[in-house]
């Protein structure tokens, strides 16, 4: 296997809130073009980790390196340039409620100098269609959309500038199984056609089976283990074993052959 480019490199991360230490000496590598699923029990700091990489939370110690830039010590301009190369989708989309979906997607594009407004709105329409929303959804306000549509619109905004990396926080939480499966397919498809690196925080075993190339397990304040789904099944750690061998995991695993057939075509 050839040496793959590392796009996110975390070393020795330490996060703490008051006396409660969430992460201690945490290391993680994410490779270009892969879909990494981050799992862990409640309170193990999955979202905190995402926020740390995206620069929303400053770690007490350690280094965060994204696309060759030291995030923690970068100056304002470098950070700005970097922020245009990643997109974040928050749990409920975090769309600006006073703007329509199309205007929401145009927000990151407004930062680009000299971009013709007509082209901007056409590109926003394209993104809306790429995430599987109807054309007319572009004129709606976030409050008029269902949860699944808001997530799709949030993803479209995260993808507005064709980022190298997208961070997804619980993309399928609160969706019905059909909607969740469709969203898994969407992530997989977009990652393939746009060459995206996806950092995905989830609880959903089906999502892990259907979309992720690699899984990182957060436990005991660090990344306990990373590897493919197959590797996870062989890990001899009580929590990891329970997680990947529990009744829900078995059900998801049985569904996997069908999911991988779909992936093939």
């Amino acid at each position, binding site marked *: 296997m050839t040496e793959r480019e590392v796009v996110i490199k975390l070393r020795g991360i330490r996060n703490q809130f008051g006396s409660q230490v969430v992460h201690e000496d945490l290391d993680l590598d994410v490779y270009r073009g892969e879909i990494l699923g981050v799992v862990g029990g409640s309170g193990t700091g999955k979202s905190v980790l995402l926020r740390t990489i995206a620069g929303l939370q400053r770690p007490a110690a350690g280094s965060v390196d994204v696309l060759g830039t030291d995030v923690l010590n970068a100056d304002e301009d470098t950070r700005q340039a970097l922020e245009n190369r990643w997109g974040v989708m928050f749990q409920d989309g975090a769309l600006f409620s*006073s703007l329509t979906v199309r205007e929401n997607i145009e927000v990151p594009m407004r930062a680009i100098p000299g971009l013709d407004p007509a*082209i901007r709105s056409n590109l926003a*329409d*394209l*993104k809306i269609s*790429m995430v599987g929303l109807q054309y007319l959804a572009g004129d709606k306000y976030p409050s008029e959309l269902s949860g699944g549509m808001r997530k799709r619109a949030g993803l479209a905004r995260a993808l507005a500038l064709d980022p190298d990396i997208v961070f997804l926080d619980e993309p399928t939480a609160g969706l019905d199984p059909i909607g969740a499966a469709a969203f898994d397919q969407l992530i997989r498809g977009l990652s393939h*056609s746009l060459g995206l690196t996806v950092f995905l925080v989830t609880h959903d075993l089906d999502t892990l089976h259907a979309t992720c190339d690699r899984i990182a397990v957060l436990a005991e304040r660090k990344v306990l283990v990373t590897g493919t789904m197959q590797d996870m099944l062989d890990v001899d750690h009580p929590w990891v074993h329970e997680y990947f061998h529990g009744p829900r995991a078995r059900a998801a695993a049985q569904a996997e052959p069908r999911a991988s057939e779909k992936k093939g075509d």
Partner: protein
Amino acid sequence: MHLSGPLTIYTVTAARTELQALAPDDVSTLDISALDRLDTAGAWALVQLQTRFADAGRDVSITGASSEAASLLESVEQAMPEKQAVAEERLTFKAWLDRFGRKVMSGVAFLRALTAYLGMFLHRLGRAIRHPSEFRLTSLVHHCEEVGLKAVPIVALMAFLIGVVLAFQGSTQLRQFGAEVFVVDLIAISVLRELGILLTAIIVAGRTASAFTAAIGSMKMREEIDAMRTLGLDPAMNLFVPRILALLIMLPILGLIANLAGLFGGGLMSWIDLGISPAMFMTRLVEGTSVDHVFVGLVKAPFFALIIGVVGCHAGMQVQSNAESLGRMTSNAVVTAIFAVIVADAVFSIFFARIGI
């Protein structure tokens, strides 16, 4: 034709102008092997060009695409949105009339809803009298403190200052006629009859209508109201009755406090500015001013209280599941309550003038 350089969202505006200038006969193939970067925006421009030429009956093939570029082009081509015409509204006279009619009807519906809430409150109040065990006394006391006791400092200070202003303005005008002593009548009648209770109601509307809307609205937003219903608790009995009843009890008391503070402020200023001693002020007040004025003022208090309480509770129940509507309804409640209080005051003024009190 060969394309080179980056074709991304940063360069697409210029590139598209050039691509649009091309006539269908100029090009047969587009070689993109020399592009160092292609993103969705660039792919969109290429696909648009292809579509435009295809409409002119000419096929342009894109060659030299790397596998990533090919898959990007393919997915963009599949996703090309089809513009759907949005039904456009033309502002004809009929449309304007239609909109105006709807506005009027929604205003009527709003008034009906407020009346319904008033009826609901009275009904539940009657029920609480018949079944005292259902009534929430602790809640009532809590709201009396929130609505009444905590409003005393602001209401008293406001009324005191109004008294001071009246005395000061009145004295400068009345001195021209040598009728300084009538400043007592001026202060007494305007504070007792109108200003004391009206300004108290306005302050309470600002303070309390917004608080009612915010409290009930956030419960509505988090489905707590629905939870109450499923648990067999009546929101009107548990939320509206204690709040509106607390206002009914406390607003007259606040009005009385405002009257006293207003007279005190006026008296103090008359003493300092005009040399009307407190004893003289008192004598003039008791002799020259009928006690009717106090009643005319305070009889309005319960009506104002009902208006403020009903408007606040109704607005709270209109909150939907987003935070924006909570903010909008809260400010709506304050504006509506203050407006309604002033309208009611005007109606009372006319009524009292007609019956000659």
